[in-house]
C-alpha cells in the first residue's frame, strides 16, 4: 500500500473510528473481538484517531469516500454533522422496546430535526469531589459550600476550599443553570443566543465570590493544577468529571468521595452541569448500513454496557445496569445521580459560537474584576457580530420543530 488510496477498506468489513485510550480502549477492543467471533457477524476493524483530530478527519474523509462506516464521539457536534450530511439517521431500525432500554434523555442527545442519528454509549458530567479527611459531609447548598470553603481556605499557605476551572464555560454552567440562566433560547426552528440576563449576572457574581480575589478557589487554574491541588490535599473539594478518577488513581493518602453538586441557596434549584453523551454514529457513506446497525446494537446492549462499566468504569446508559451501579459503586453512583439534574449540551453549532465569548466574559469578570453585566454584554455583542456576518447555513433550513426537545 505504498500508493493506492482506500486499500485499507475491504468490502466485507466495517471500519470503526474512535479516540479511546487506556482502559476504555481495552474494553472496546475486547467487545469487538467477541463480536467478530460471533457467527454471521460482519467483521469490524478499529482505527484509533486522536481526540483532537477526529472531528476534522471525519469532516475531511467522509465526503470523499475515505471515511469510516461507524465512529464513536460525543453528541455535541451532531448539528455540524447533520448539516453536512455526514451521518446517517438510524431511527428507522430502533423499535420502542430498544429505545426504552436507555436512560431517559440520552437518546435525545442524538436527535436532530426529528431524526435519531446515533446510539448512546456513556455520558459525562461534572460532580463534586471532596476530601473525606477535610470534608466529612459534602455541602448540600451553596451557602454551605461557601461557609465550608472559607474555613478551609488559607491563600497564604496555598490551601483552598474548592478548586475548579472557573473561567471555563463548561465548569461555570452548573451555576448558570442553577441560578436559572441560560445561554441559548429557542427561536423559530433554531436557537438564538441569550446571554445577558439577571440570572446569568447573578450566577457570574456568585462565581466571582467563589473564584475572585477573596474567594475559596485559586485563580486561573488549568486542569493539571486542579488534579495536583486536590490530589495533594491542598484543595478540599474539586469540581470535575469521571476522567478525574484516573488522575487520582494511586494517590495513597487521599480519601475522597463524590457527591452531586449543591443546591443553589438563592433559587433552591440544583446546580446543573452540562451533560455530554458519547455515542456511536453511522457514516452517511456507510456501505453496509444494516450490518453496521447490528453492531451498533451489539455495542449498546445491556451486556456490553455492563462490561464497559466493569472494565473501564464507563458510566452506563442502560437503565438496568445503571440501577445496579447505584448500589455497588458510591463514586459512580454520584455521577448517575448527578445526571438527573444535568442539562444536555446543546448540539447546535450556535453553542460553539457562544462558547468563546462567554469564556472571555468569565475571565474578564472573575480574574480581572470587570463588572459581570458589562462582561456579559460584551460577550453578547461579540456573538452578535459573529452571527451578523455569518449566518450558519444549517440554522436556516430546519423544518422540523421536534428538534426543540433538546433543552438548552
Amino acid at each position: 500500500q505504498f500508493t493506492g488510496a482506500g486499500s485499507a477498506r475491504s468490502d466485507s468489513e466495517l471500519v470503526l473510528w474512535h479516540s479511546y485510550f487506556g482502559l476504555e480502549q481495552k474494553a472496546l477492543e475486547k467487545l469487538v473481538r467477541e463480536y467478530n467471533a460471533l457467527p454471521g457477524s460482519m467483521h469490524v476493524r478499529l482505527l484509533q484517531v486522536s481526540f483532537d483530530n477526529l472531528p476534522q478527519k471525519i469532516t475531511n474523509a467522509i465526503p470523499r469516500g475515505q471515511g469510516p462506516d461507524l465512529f464513536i464521539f460525543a453528541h455535541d457536534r451532531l448539528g455540524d454533522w447533520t448539516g453536512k450530511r455526514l451521518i446517517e439517521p438510524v431511527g428507522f431500525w430502533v423499535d420502542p422496546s430498544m429505545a426504552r432500554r436507555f436512560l431517559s434523555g440520552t437518546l435525545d442527545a442524538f436527535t436532530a430535526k426529528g431524526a435519531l442519528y446515533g446510539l448512546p454509549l456513556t455520558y459525562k458530567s461534572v460532580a463534586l469531589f471532596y476530601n473525606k479527611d477535610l470534608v466529612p459531609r459534602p455541602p448540600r447548598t451553596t451557602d454551605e459550600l461557601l461557609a465550608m470553603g472559607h474555613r478551609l481556605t488559607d491563600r497564604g499557605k496555598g490551601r483552598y476550599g474548592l478548586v475548579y476551572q472557573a473561567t471555563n464555560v463548561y465548569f461555570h454552567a452548573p451555576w448558570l443553570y442553577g441560578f436559572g440562566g441560560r445561554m441559548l433560547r429557542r427561536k423559530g426552528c433554531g436557537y438564538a443566543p441569550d446571554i445577558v440576563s439577571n440570572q446569568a449576572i447573578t450566577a457570574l457574581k456568585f462565581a466571582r465570590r467563589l473564584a475572585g480575589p477573596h474567594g475559596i478557589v485559586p485563580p486561573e487554574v488549568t486542569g493539571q493544577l486542579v488534579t495536583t491541588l486536590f490530589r495533594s490535599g491542598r484543595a478540599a473539594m474539586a469540581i470535575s468529571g469521571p476522567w478525574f478518577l484516573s488522575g487520582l488513581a494511586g494517590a495513597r493518602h487521599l480519601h475522597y468521595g463524590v457527591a452531586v453538586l449543591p443546591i443553589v441557596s438563592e433559587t433552591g434549584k440544583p446546580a446543573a452541569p452540562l451533560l455530554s453523551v458519547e455515542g456511536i454514529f453511522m457514516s452517511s457513506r456507510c456501505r453496509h448500513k444494516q450490518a453496521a446497525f447490528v453492531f451498533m446494537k451489539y455495542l449498546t446492549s445491556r451486556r456490553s454496557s455492563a462490561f464497559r462499566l466493569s472494565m473501564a468504569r464507563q458510566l452506563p446508559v442502560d437503565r438496568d445496569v445503571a440501577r445496579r451501579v447505584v448500589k455497588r459503586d458510591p463514586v459512580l453512583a454520584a455521577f448517575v445521580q448527578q445526571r438527573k439534574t444535568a442539562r444536555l449540551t446543546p448540539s447546535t453549532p450556535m453553542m460553539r459560537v457562544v462558547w468563546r465569548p462567554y469564556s472571555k466574559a468569565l475571565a474578564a469578570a472573575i480574574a480581572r474584576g470587570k463588572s459581570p453585566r458589562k462582561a456579559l454584554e460584551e460577550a453578547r455583542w461579540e456573538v452578535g457580530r459573529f452571527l451578523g456576518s455569518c449566518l450558519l447555513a444549517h440554522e436556516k433550513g430546519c423544518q422540523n420543530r421536534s428538534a426543540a426537545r433538546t433543552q438548552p
Partner: protein
Amino acid sequence: MMKRKLATRLLTHLFLMTFTLATLFPVLLVIRKSLTPGDSFRLSLNPIPTEVTSQHYKKVVTARDFDGHWLFGRQVLNSLVVAGLTTIFGVFLAATAAYAFSRFRFPGQKSGMAMFLVVQMFPGTLLLIPLYVILDKLGLLNSVAGLVLVYSTTAIPFCVWMLKGYFDTIPKELEEAARIDGASRMGLFWHVVLPLSRPAIAVTALFSFMTAWNEYILAETFLNDEAAYTLPVVLQHFVGDKSAQWGAFAAGAILVSIPVMALFYVLQRHLVSGLTAGGVKG
C-alpha cells in the same frame, strides 16, 4: 593574559551552560514525567524524579494491537520507512534545486527562493484541507507515497536555503576542473559537489528526517489504516479530551527521539567544516 583567558572561558562556559539549560529545561521536565508513576504532571521545577518507574516505557513498548500484533515494532518500522523515504526524496530534490539556484542564472531565481520562504509561512491548519484535496485527486490518500510527498514538499524550502548557502561556498574551480576532466553537469554534481557538501547534506537529511519523524497531524489525517500509523500518531492517542496519560506520552516522546539522536550521532562525523580544505590554494 592567562588569567584573563581563564576568566573569559569561565564566563563563556557559564553563559553557554545557563543558556543550554534554559533551552533544555522543558525537556528535562518531560524526562522526569516519563519516569514518574502516575499520569499527571507535577508542577515543580525540580527535574529530578522522586519516585522512579519504568511502567510508562513498558506500556509504550509492549502495546499490542487489536489482533495481538506487536504494535511498537511496526510503528517504528512505518516511521522509519516514511522518514527514510522523505529524507531521500527531499534531500535529492532539494539538492538539485539548490544547485540550480546556486549555479545558474535564470529569471525567477531570486523570486523562486523568496517563494520558498513564503510557503513555509502559512499556518498548517490552513494547508491541511488543500493538501487533502490534492492527495485525494492524485489517489495518494492513505498511502506512504502521499505522506512522503507532503513531507518532502514541507521540508524542501528549508533544505534548499540551507544547501544553496553551502553550494555557494564550493570553489567554482573544482567544478571547472571536473568539466575539463570529462564530467557532465550531472557527473560533476554527483562526483564533486555532493561529496564536498557532506556537512550540509547531513544537516539537511537530519532536518528532513525530523520533519517526517515527528509529524502526526497530517499523518493521522491522511492515513486510514492502523497498520500504517507512524509513531507520533500513536503517541498522540495518549491525549484525550479532558484527561491524558502524560506518563506514557512522555515516555513515548523520549523513545521517539532516540532514533533521531542515533541518526545525529551517525551523521555528526560528517558535520565537519573545512571539507574543501586543500583543494584550492590561498
